[in-house]
Protein backbone atom coordinates (compact mmCIF):
# COMPACT_ATOMS: atom_id res chain seq x y z
CA UNK A 1 0.00 0.00 0.00
CA UNK A 2 2.79 2.39 0.96
CA UNK A 3 4.59 1.52 -2.26
CA UNK A 4 1.48 2.25 -4.32
CA UNK A 5 1.00 5.58 -2.57
CA UNK A 6 4.62 6.48 -3.34
CA UNK A 7 4.08 5.59 -7.00
CA UNK A 8 0.85 7.62 -7.06
CA UNK A 9 2.68 10.62 -5.56
CA UNK A 10 5.35 10.25 -8.23
CA UNK A 11 2.63 10.14 -10.91
CA UNK A 12 1.06 13.31 -9.45
CA UNK A 13 4.45 14.97 -9.96
CA UNK A 14 4.53 13.62 -13.55
CA UNK A 15 7.63 11.46 -13.05
CA UNK A 16 7.88 9.07 -16.04
CA UNK A 17 9.26 6.26 -13.87
CA UNK A 18 6.15 6.35 -11.69
CA UNK A 19 3.89 5.49 -14.63
CA UNK A 20 6.20 2.60 -15.60
CA UNK A 21 6.15 1.26 -12.01
CA UNK A 22 2.34 1.72 -11.86
CA UNK A 23 1.94 -0.41 -14.99
CA UNK A 24 3.89 -3.33 -13.49
CA UNK A 25 2.31 -3.11 -10.03
CA UNK A 26 -1.29 -1.84 -9.98
CA UNK A 27 -2.07 -1.52 -13.69
CA UNK A 28 -5.65 -1.01 -14.95
CA UNK A 29 -7.26 -2.45 -11.82
CA UNK A 30 -5.31 0.03 -9.68
CA UNK A 31 -6.16 2.89 -12.02
CA UNK A 32 -9.87 2.08 -11.85
CA UNK A 33 -9.66 1.77 -8.06
CA UNK A 34 -8.06 5.25 -7.83
CA UNK A 35 -10.72 6.67 -10.15
CA UNK A 36 -13.48 5.14 -8.04
CA UNK A 37 -11.97 6.21 -4.70
CA UNK A 38 -11.34 9.84 -5.70
CA UNK A 39 -14.75 10.20 -7.41
CA UNK A 40 -16.57 8.80 -4.37
CA UNK A 41 -14.54 10.95 -1.94
CA UNK A 42 -15.26 14.20 -3.81
CA UNK A 43 -18.89 13.29 -4.48
CA UNK A 44 -19.50 12.30 -0.85
CA UNK A 45 -18.42 15.75 0.31
CA UNK A 46 -20.72 17.34 -2.29
CA UNK A 47 -23.56 14.99 -1.39
CA UNK A 48 -23.37 15.89 2.31
CA UNK A 49 -23.53 19.60 1.47
CA UNK A 50 -26.34 19.08 -1.07
CA UNK A 51 -28.39 17.01 1.37
CA UNK A 52 -27.89 19.49 4.24
CA UNK A 53 -28.89 22.42 2.04
CA UNK A 54 -32.08 20.60 0.94
CA UNK A 55 -32.93 19.55 4.49
CA UNK A 56 -32.60 23.16 5.64
CA UNK A 57 -35.20 24.85 3.44
CA UNK A 58 -34.21 28.34 4.57
CA UNK A 59 -30.61 27.67 3.46
CA UNK A 60 -31.85 26.39 0.08
CA UNK A 61 -34.05 29.46 -0.53
CA UNK A 62 -31.29 31.87 0.46
CA UNK A 63 -28.73 30.07 -1.75
CA UNK A 64 -31.12 30.41 -4.71
CA UNK A 65 -31.64 34.11 -3.93
CA UNK A 66 -27.85 34.50 -3.76
CA UNK A 67 -27.51 32.80 -7.16
CA UNK A 68 -29.93 35.30 -8.73
CA UNK A 69 -28.14 38.22 -7.05
CA UNK A 70 -24.75 36.92 -8.22
CA UNK A 71 -26.00 36.62 -11.81
CA UNK A 72 -27.38 40.17 -11.63
CA UNK A 73 -24.02 41.48 -10.35
CA UNK A 74 -21.98 39.63 -12.96
CA UNK A 75 -24.26 40.67 -15.82
CA UNK A 76 -23.88 44.33 -14.80
CA UNK A 77 -20.23 44.05 -15.95
CA UNK A 78 -21.20 42.44 -19.27
CA UNK A 79 -21.76 44.25 -22.60
CA UNK A 80 -25.38 43.04 -22.80
CA UNK A 81 -28.11 45.74 -22.90
CA UNK A 82 -29.96 46.43 -19.63
CA UNK A 83 -33.27 44.92 -20.74
CA UNK A 84 -31.51 41.66 -21.74
CA UNK A 85 -29.73 41.54 -18.37
CA UNK A 86 -33.03 42.04 -16.58
CA UNK A 87 -34.69 39.38 -18.76
CA UNK A 88 -31.95 36.82 -18.00
CA UNK A 89 -32.19 37.51 -14.25
CA UNK A 90 -36.00 37.35 -14.28
CA UNK A 91 -35.95 34.07 -16.23
CA UNK A 92 -33.42 32.51 -13.85
CA UNK A 93 -35.55 33.55 -10.87
CA UNK A 94 -38.67 32.10 -12.56
CA UNK A 95 -36.90 28.80 -13.35
CA UNK A 96 -35.62 28.51 -9.77
CA UNK A 97 -39.15 29.22 -8.51
CA UNK A 98 -40.47 26.44 -10.79
CA UNK A 99 -37.76 24.13 -9.42
CA UNK A 100 -38.83 25.04 -5.85
CA UNK A 101 -42.47 24.24 -6.62
CA UNK A 102 -41.49 20.87 -8.12
CA UNK A 103 -39.27 20.05 -5.13
CA UNK A 104 -42.07 20.95 -2.72
CA UNK A 105 -44.36 18.30 -4.23
CA UNK A 106 -45.08 15.36 -1.89
CA UNK A 107 -43.26 12.08 -2.35
CA UNK A 108 -43.91 8.59 -0.86
CA UNK A 109 -40.84 8.53 1.42
CA UNK A 110 -41.32 12.08 2.65
CA UNK A 111 -38.94 14.97 2.00
CA UNK A 112 -36.27 14.15 4.59
CA UNK A 113 -35.85 10.51 3.61
CA UNK A 114 -35.97 11.42 -0.08
CA UNK A 115 -33.25 14.07 0.16
CA UNK A 116 -30.98 11.73 2.12
CA UNK A 117 -31.43 8.85 -0.33
CA UNK A 118 -31.03 11.17 -3.31
CA UNK A 119 -27.84 12.57 -1.76
CA UNK A 120 -26.47 9.03 -1.42
CA UNK A 121 -27.50 8.23 -5.00
CA UNK A 122 -25.76 11.36 -6.29
CA UNK A 123 -22.54 10.26 -4.60
CA UNK A 124 -22.87 6.72 -6.01
CA UNK A 125 -23.40 7.97 -9.55
CA UNK A 126 -20.29 10.21 -9.49
CA UNK A 127 -17.84 7.49 -10.63
CA UNK A 128 -20.13 6.75 -13.59
CA UNK A 129 -20.17 10.43 -14.61
CA UNK A 130 -16.38 10.54 -14.45
CA UNK A 131 -16.19 7.25 -16.38
CA UNK A 132 -18.47 8.72 -19.07
CA UNK A 133 -15.86 11.44 -19.75
CA UNK A 134 -12.58 9.61 -19.14
CA UNK A 135 -13.18 6.26 -20.87
CA UNK A 136 -14.55 7.35 -24.28
CA UNK A 137 -11.92 10.10 -24.52
CA UNK A 138 -9.13 7.70 -23.56
CA UNK A 139 -10.32 5.10 -26.08
CA UNK A 140 -10.15 7.72 -28.84
CA UNK A 141 -6.69 8.81 -27.65
CA UNK A 142 -5.59 5.15 -27.62
CA UNK A 143 -6.83 4.65 -31.20
CA UNK A 144 -4.98 7.80 -32.29
CA UNK A 145 -1.84 6.69 -30.47
CA UNK A 146 -1.96 3.35 -32.27
CA UNK A 147 -2.43 5.14 -35.59
CA UNK A 148 0.63 7.30 -34.75
CA UNK A 149 2.78 4.21 -34.16
CA UNK A 150 2.25 3.17 -30.54
CA UNK A 151 2.46 -0.55 -29.78
CA UNK A 152 1.07 -0.29 -26.26
CA UNK A 153 -1.88 -2.36 -25.11
CA UNK A 154 -5.22 -0.91 -24.03
CA UNK A 155 -4.95 -1.92 -20.34
CA UNK A 156 -1.52 -0.20 -20.07
CA UNK A 157 -2.74 3.08 -21.52
CA UNK A 158 -6.00 3.15 -19.56
CA UNK A 159 -4.33 2.18 -16.28
CA UNK A 160 -1.84 5.04 -16.50
CA UNK A 161 -4.27 7.65 -17.83
CA UNK A 162 -6.69 7.01 -14.96
CA UNK A 163 -4.14 8.63 -12.62
CA UNK A 164 -5.18 12.03 -14.02
CA UNK A 165 -7.81 11.98 -11.30
CA UNK A 166 -5.28 12.25 -8.43
CA UNK A 167 -5.24 16.08 -8.09
CA UNK A 168 -9.05 16.11 -7.96
CA UNK A 169 -8.85 14.77 -4.43
CA UNK A 170 -8.34 18.44 -3.54
CA UNK A 171 -11.64 19.51 -5.19
CA UNK A 172 -13.62 19.72 -1.89
CA UNK A 173 -11.29 22.62 -0.93
CA UNK A 174 -13.18 24.78 -3.46
CA UNK A 175 -15.67 25.47 -0.68
CA UNK A 176 -13.05 27.41 1.27
CA UNK A 177 -13.42 31.19 1.19
CA UNK A 178 -10.63 33.04 -0.58
CA UNK A 179 -8.67 30.52 -2.68
CA UNK A 180 -11.71 28.23 -3.12
CA UNK A 181 -12.76 29.26 -6.67
CA UNK A 182 -9.22 28.71 -7.97
CA UNK A 183 -9.02 25.09 -6.78
CA UNK A 184 -11.00 23.34 -9.54
CA UNK A 185 -9.28 25.14 -12.47
CA UNK A 186 -5.90 24.30 -10.86
CA UNK A 187 -6.71 20.63 -10.30
CA UNK A 188 -8.14 20.37 -13.83
CA UNK A 189 -4.95 21.75 -15.39
CA UNK A 190 -2.79 19.58 -13.13
CA UNK A 191 -4.88 16.52 -14.02
CA UNK A 192 -4.61 17.28 -17.74
CA UNK A 193 -0.82 17.57 -17.43
CA UNK A 194 -0.68 14.20 -15.65
CA UNK A 195 -2.92 12.71 -18.36
CA UNK A 196 -0.65 13.93 -21.15
CA UNK A 197 2.50 12.58 -19.43
CA UNK A 198 0.76 9.26 -18.68
CA UNK A 199 -0.25 8.83 -22.33
CA UNK A 200 3.27 9.69 -23.50
CA UNK A 201 4.92 7.16 -21.15
CA UNK A 202 2.34 4.39 -21.54
CA UNK A 203 2.08 4.64 -25.33
CA UNK A 204 5.83 4.92 -25.89
CA UNK A 205 5.35 7.82 -28.32
CA UNK A 206 7.59 10.87 -28.40
CA UNK A 207 6.25 14.08 -26.83
CA UNK A 208 4.89 15.80 -30.01
CA UNK A 209 2.97 12.72 -31.21
CA UNK A 210 1.69 11.94 -27.72
CA UNK A 211 0.47 15.55 -27.39
CA UNK A 212 -1.22 15.30 -30.79
CA UNK A 213 -3.02 12.12 -29.74
CA UNK A 214 -4.16 13.77 -26.49
CA UNK A 215 -5.24 17.13 -27.94
CA UNK A 216 -6.72 16.15 -31.30
CA UNK A 217 -10.11 14.89 -29.99
CA UNK A 218 -10.58 18.13 -28.00
CA UNK A 219 -9.63 20.30 -30.97
CA UNK A 220 -12.03 18.41 -33.25
CA UNK A 221 -14.85 18.63 -30.68
CA UNK A 222 -14.29 22.39 -30.18
CA UNK A 223 -14.16 23.01 -33.94
CA UNK A 224 -17.35 21.03 -34.57
CA UNK A 225 -19.13 22.81 -31.68
CA UNK A 226 -18.10 26.28 -32.88
CA UNK A 227 -19.18 25.36 -36.39
CA UNK A 228 -22.55 24.06 -35.21
CA UNK A 229 -23.18 27.19 -33.12
CA UNK A 230 -22.20 29.42 -36.08
CA UNK A 231 -24.54 27.56 -38.43
CA UNK A 232 -27.36 27.75 -35.87
CA UNK A 233 -26.74 31.49 -35.42
CA UNK A 234 -26.90 32.05 -39.19
CA UNK A 235 -30.02 29.88 -39.67
CA UNK A 236 -31.98 31.28 -36.73
Amino acid at each position, binding site marked *: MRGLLAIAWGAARREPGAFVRWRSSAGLAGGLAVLLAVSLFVASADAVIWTRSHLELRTLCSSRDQLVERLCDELSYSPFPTDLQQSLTT*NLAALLELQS*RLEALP*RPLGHQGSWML*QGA*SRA*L*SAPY*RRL*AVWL*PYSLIVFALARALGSRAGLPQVLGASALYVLPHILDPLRLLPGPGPAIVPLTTIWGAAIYARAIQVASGLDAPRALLAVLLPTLVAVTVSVGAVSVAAVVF
Partner: protein
Amino acid sequence: MLPIPALVGFVPRALLFDGDVYLEIKSRPRAGREGARFLLVLGTALGLAGTLSAIVAWATTPDLADVRRVLAQELATLPLLQRLGPSAPQPVALAASPWLWAAARWLFPTPLLALARLPAVPAGLFLAWLAHSLLAHVAACLLGGRGRLSATLGCLALAEAPRALLLVPLLPPLGLAHFGIWAWVLAARFQAIRAAHALEGWRAFWATLLPALASGVLSALAVGVALLAALAGVR
Protein backbone atom coordinates in the same frame (compact mmCIF):
# COMPACT_ATOMS: atom_id res chain seq x y z
CA MET B 1 -21.52 -26.64 -20.21
CA LEU B 2 -19.68 -24.34 -17.85
CA PRO B 3 -21.32 -23.81 -14.43
CA ILE B 4 -22.79 -20.35 -13.77
CA PRO B 5 -20.08 -19.38 -11.23
CA ALA B 6 -17.41 -20.13 -13.84
CA LEU B 7 -19.21 -17.89 -16.35
CA VAL B 8 -19.51 -15.14 -13.75
CA GLY B 9 -15.80 -15.56 -13.03
CA PHE B 10 -15.08 -14.35 -16.56
CA VAL B 11 -16.53 -10.92 -15.73
CA PRO B 12 -13.54 -9.39 -13.86
CA ARG B 13 -11.15 -10.54 -16.58
CA ALA B 14 -13.37 -9.15 -19.33
CA LEU B 15 -13.65 -5.84 -17.42
CA LEU B 16 -9.84 -5.55 -17.28
CA PHE B 17 -9.57 -6.19 -21.06
CA ASP B 18 -7.87 -9.59 -20.66
CA GLY B 19 -8.00 -10.84 -24.25
CA ASP B 20 -7.36 -14.47 -23.25
CA VAL B 21 -10.83 -14.78 -21.71
CA TYR B 22 -12.38 -14.48 -25.19
CA LEU B 23 -10.05 -17.22 -26.51
CA GLU B 24 -11.20 -19.45 -23.64
CA ILE B 25 -14.87 -19.03 -24.45
CA LYS B 26 -14.13 -19.33 -28.19
CA SER B 27 -12.56 -22.75 -27.57
CA ARG B 28 -15.77 -24.07 -25.98
CA PRO B 29 -17.67 -26.42 -28.35
CA ARG B 30 -20.97 -24.58 -27.77
CA ALA B 31 -19.69 -21.06 -27.24
CA GLY B 32 -22.95 -19.51 -28.45
CA ARG B 33 -25.01 -21.38 -25.87
CA GLU B 34 -22.54 -20.52 -23.10
CA GLY B 35 -22.85 -16.88 -24.15
CA ALA B 36 -26.63 -17.04 -24.15
CA ARG B 37 -26.61 -18.53 -20.59
CA PHE B 38 -24.24 -15.78 -19.45
CA LEU B 39 -26.52 -13.12 -20.90
CA LEU B 40 -29.58 -14.67 -19.28
CA VAL B 41 -27.91 -14.48 -15.87
CA LEU B 42 -26.62 -10.95 -16.50
CA GLY B 43 -29.94 -9.75 -17.90
CA THR B 44 -31.91 -11.16 -14.97
CA ALA B 45 -29.52 -9.57 -12.47
CA LEU B 46 -29.75 -6.23 -14.32
CA GLY B 47 -33.54 -6.49 -14.38
CA LEU B 48 -33.67 -7.06 -10.62
CA ALA B 49 -31.20 -4.24 -9.92
CA GLY B 50 -33.12 -1.94 -12.24
CA THR B 51 -36.40 -2.77 -10.55
CA LEU B 52 -34.94 -2.04 -7.12
CA SER B 53 -33.48 1.27 -8.35
CA ALA B 54 -36.81 2.18 -9.96
CA ILE B 55 -38.68 1.50 -6.70
CA VAL B 56 -36.21 3.68 -4.77
CA ALA B 57 -36.53 6.43 -7.42
CA TRP B 58 -40.36 6.22 -7.19
CA ALA B 59 -40.21 6.55 -3.41
CA THR B 60 -37.96 9.62 -3.50
CA THR B 61 -39.53 11.63 -6.36
CA PRO B 62 -42.93 13.31 -6.79
CA ASP B 63 -45.68 11.55 -8.72
CA LEU B 64 -45.50 12.28 -12.46
CA ALA B 65 -49.14 13.40 -12.48
CA ASP B 66 -48.27 16.15 -9.93
CA VAL B 67 -45.18 17.19 -11.94
CA ARG B 68 -47.29 17.35 -15.10
CA ARG B 69 -49.91 19.51 -13.33
CA VAL B 70 -47.30 21.98 -12.04
CA LEU B 71 -45.57 22.22 -15.41
CA ALA B 72 -48.88 22.77 -17.22
CA GLN B 73 -49.70 25.61 -14.76
CA GLU B 74 -46.28 27.25 -14.56
CA LEU B 75 -44.61 26.87 -17.97
CA ALA B 76 -46.95 29.27 -19.75
CA THR B 77 -46.13 32.00 -17.20
CA LEU B 78 -42.35 31.78 -17.70
CA PRO B 79 -41.12 35.16 -19.03
CA LEU B 80 -38.90 33.43 -21.63
CA LEU B 81 -41.82 31.54 -23.16
CA GLN B 82 -44.03 34.64 -23.12
CA ARG B 83 -41.38 36.48 -25.15
CA LEU B 84 -41.42 33.69 -27.77
CA GLY B 85 -44.84 34.95 -28.83
CA PRO B 86 -46.80 32.75 -31.32
CA SER B 87 -44.38 29.82 -31.00
CA ALA B 88 -44.72 29.86 -27.18
CA PRO B 89 -47.66 27.39 -27.06
CA GLN B 90 -45.43 24.68 -28.60
CA PRO B 91 -43.24 23.99 -25.54
CA VAL B 92 -46.29 24.15 -23.25
CA ALA B 93 -48.31 21.79 -25.45
CA LEU B 94 -45.32 19.46 -25.81
CA ALA B 95 -45.00 19.34 -22.01
CA ALA B 96 -48.66 18.25 -21.86
CA SER B 97 -48.23 15.62 -24.61
CA PRO B 98 -49.60 12.22 -23.48
CA TRP B 99 -46.88 10.42 -25.49
CA LEU B 100 -44.15 12.26 -23.61
CA TRP B 101 -45.65 11.38 -20.24
CA ALA B 102 -46.22 7.76 -21.27
CA ALA B 103 -42.50 7.58 -22.15
CA ALA B 104 -41.64 9.29 -18.84
CA ARG B 105 -43.85 6.78 -16.97
CA TRP B 106 -41.92 3.93 -18.63
CA LEU B 107 -38.59 5.51 -17.60
CA PHE B 108 -39.80 6.43 -14.07
CA PRO B 109 -42.29 3.66 -13.29
CA THR B 110 -44.42 2.88 -10.27
CA PRO B 111 -43.32 -0.25 -8.32
CA LEU B 112 -45.91 -2.41 -10.10
CA LEU B 113 -44.85 -1.19 -13.53
CA ALA B 114 -41.20 -1.68 -12.55
CA LEU B 115 -41.93 -5.31 -11.67
CA ALA B 116 -43.91 -5.77 -14.90
CA ARG B 117 -40.99 -4.25 -16.81
CA LEU B 118 -38.48 -6.71 -15.30
CA PRO B 119 -38.68 -9.46 -17.99
CA ALA B 120 -38.11 -6.82 -20.68
CA VAL B 121 -34.51 -6.31 -19.50
CA PRO B 122 -33.09 -9.82 -20.15
CA ALA B 123 -35.28 -10.14 -23.26
CA GLY B 124 -34.08 -6.79 -24.61
CA LEU B 125 -30.44 -7.59 -23.81
CA PHE B 126 -30.75 -11.00 -25.52
CA LEU B 127 -32.38 -9.62 -28.67
CA ALA B 128 -29.89 -6.73 -28.90
CA TRP B 129 -26.98 -9.18 -28.48
CA LEU B 130 -28.36 -11.49 -31.17
CA ALA B 131 -28.94 -8.67 -33.66
CA HIS B 132 -25.57 -7.03 -33.02
CA SER B 133 -23.70 -10.37 -33.16
CA LEU B 134 -25.21 -11.27 -36.53
CA LEU B 135 -24.29 -7.86 -37.96
CA ALA B 136 -20.80 -8.04 -36.46
CA HIS B 137 -20.28 -11.58 -37.77
CA VAL B 138 -21.21 -10.49 -41.29
CA ALA B 139 -18.94 -7.42 -41.04
CA ALA B 140 -16.04 -9.50 -39.68
CA CYS B 141 -16.41 -12.13 -42.44
CA LEU B 142 -16.46 -9.40 -45.09
CA LEU B 143 -13.24 -7.99 -43.60
CA GLY B 144 -11.48 -11.36 -43.77
CA GLY B 145 -12.51 -12.99 -40.50
CA ARG B 146 -12.45 -16.76 -40.15
CA GLY B 147 -14.53 -17.30 -37.02
CA ARG B 148 -17.57 -19.51 -36.49
CA LEU B 149 -20.91 -17.85 -35.74
CA SER B 150 -20.99 -19.70 -32.42
CA ALA B 151 -17.62 -18.22 -31.45
CA THR B 152 -18.82 -14.72 -32.41
CA LEU B 153 -21.96 -15.15 -30.34
CA GLY B 154 -20.05 -16.47 -27.32
CA CYS B 155 -17.34 -13.81 -27.39
CA LEU B 156 -19.78 -10.93 -27.94
CA ALA B 157 -21.94 -12.18 -25.08
CA LEU B 158 -18.94 -11.90 -22.78
CA ALA B 159 -18.29 -8.40 -24.15
CA GLU B 160 -21.52 -7.30 -22.42
CA ALA B 161 -19.80 -7.93 -19.05
CA PRO B 162 -19.20 -4.20 -18.33
CA ARG B 163 -22.96 -3.84 -17.85
CA ALA B 164 -22.40 -5.72 -14.57
CA LEU B 165 -21.17 -2.37 -13.21
CA LEU B 166 -24.82 -1.30 -13.17
CA LEU B 167 -25.57 -3.86 -10.44
CA VAL B 168 -24.90 -1.28 -7.70
CA PRO B 169 -27.76 -0.78 -5.20
CA LEU B 170 -29.38 2.68 -4.95
CA LEU B 171 -27.97 3.69 -8.34
CA PRO B 172 -30.20 6.44 -9.74
CA PRO B 173 -31.16 6.74 -13.43
CA LEU B 174 -27.79 7.58 -14.98
CA GLY B 175 -28.88 9.23 -18.20
CA LEU B 176 -25.83 10.38 -20.17
CA ALA B 177 -23.52 8.76 -17.59
CA HIS B 178 -24.43 5.45 -19.31
CA PHE B 179 -22.07 6.60 -22.04
CA GLY B 180 -19.08 5.33 -20.05
CA ILE B 181 -20.54 1.83 -19.77
CA TRP B 182 -21.44 1.86 -23.46
CA ALA B 183 -17.86 2.84 -24.36
CA TRP B 184 -16.54 0.03 -22.14
CA VAL B 185 -18.83 -2.48 -23.88
CA LEU B 186 -17.69 -1.19 -27.29
CA ALA B 187 -14.02 -1.66 -26.36
CA ALA B 188 -14.80 -5.17 -25.08
CA ARG B 189 -16.61 -5.96 -28.35
CA PHE B 190 -13.45 -4.96 -30.23
CA GLN B 191 -11.45 -7.52 -28.25
CA ALA B 192 -14.20 -10.10 -28.69
CA ILE B 193 -14.36 -9.72 -32.48
CA ARG B 194 -10.58 -9.76 -32.74
CA ALA B 195 -10.40 -12.99 -30.74
CA ALA B 196 -13.37 -14.68 -32.43
CA HIS B 197 -12.19 -14.01 -35.99
CA ALA B 198 -8.41 -13.69 -35.51
CA LEU B 199 -8.59 -10.27 -37.16
CA GLU B 200 -5.76 -7.77 -36.96
CA GLY B 201 -6.35 -4.49 -35.14
CA TRP B 202 -7.84 -2.10 -37.72
CA ARG B 203 -10.08 -4.74 -39.35
CA ALA B 204 -11.43 -5.72 -35.93
CA PHE B 205 -11.93 -1.97 -35.22
CA TRP B 206 -14.15 -1.51 -38.30
CA ALA B 207 -15.94 -4.82 -37.72
CA THR B 208 -16.84 -3.47 -34.26
CA LEU B 209 -17.65 0.10 -35.21
CA LEU B 210 -19.80 -0.46 -38.32
CA PRO B 211 -22.57 -2.46 -36.58
CA ALA B 212 -22.51 0.02 -33.66
CA LEU B 213 -22.91 2.94 -36.08
CA ALA B 214 -25.71 1.13 -37.92
CA SER B 215 -27.53 0.47 -34.61
CA GLY B 216 -26.98 4.08 -33.54
CA VAL B 217 -28.39 5.47 -36.78
CA LEU B 218 -31.43 3.18 -36.61
CA SER B 219 -32.05 4.12 -32.95
CA ALA B 220 -31.71 7.83 -33.71
CA LEU B 221 -34.17 7.46 -36.61
CA ALA B 222 -36.63 5.62 -34.37
CA VAL B 223 -36.38 8.30 -31.65
CA GLY B 224 -36.70 11.04 -34.27
CA VAL B 225 -39.82 9.47 -35.76
CA ALA B 226 -41.33 9.09 -32.28
CA LEU B 227 -40.60 12.77 -31.46
CA LEU B 228 -42.09 13.93 -34.78
CA ALA B 229 -45.19 11.85 -34.09
CA ALA B 230 -45.45 13.41 -30.62
CA LEU B 231 -45.07 16.93 -32.10
CA ALA B 232 -47.63 16.16 -34.80
CA GLY B 233 -50.01 14.96 -32.10
CA VAL B 234 -49.41 18.20 -30.20
CA ARG B 235 -50.28 20.31 -33.26
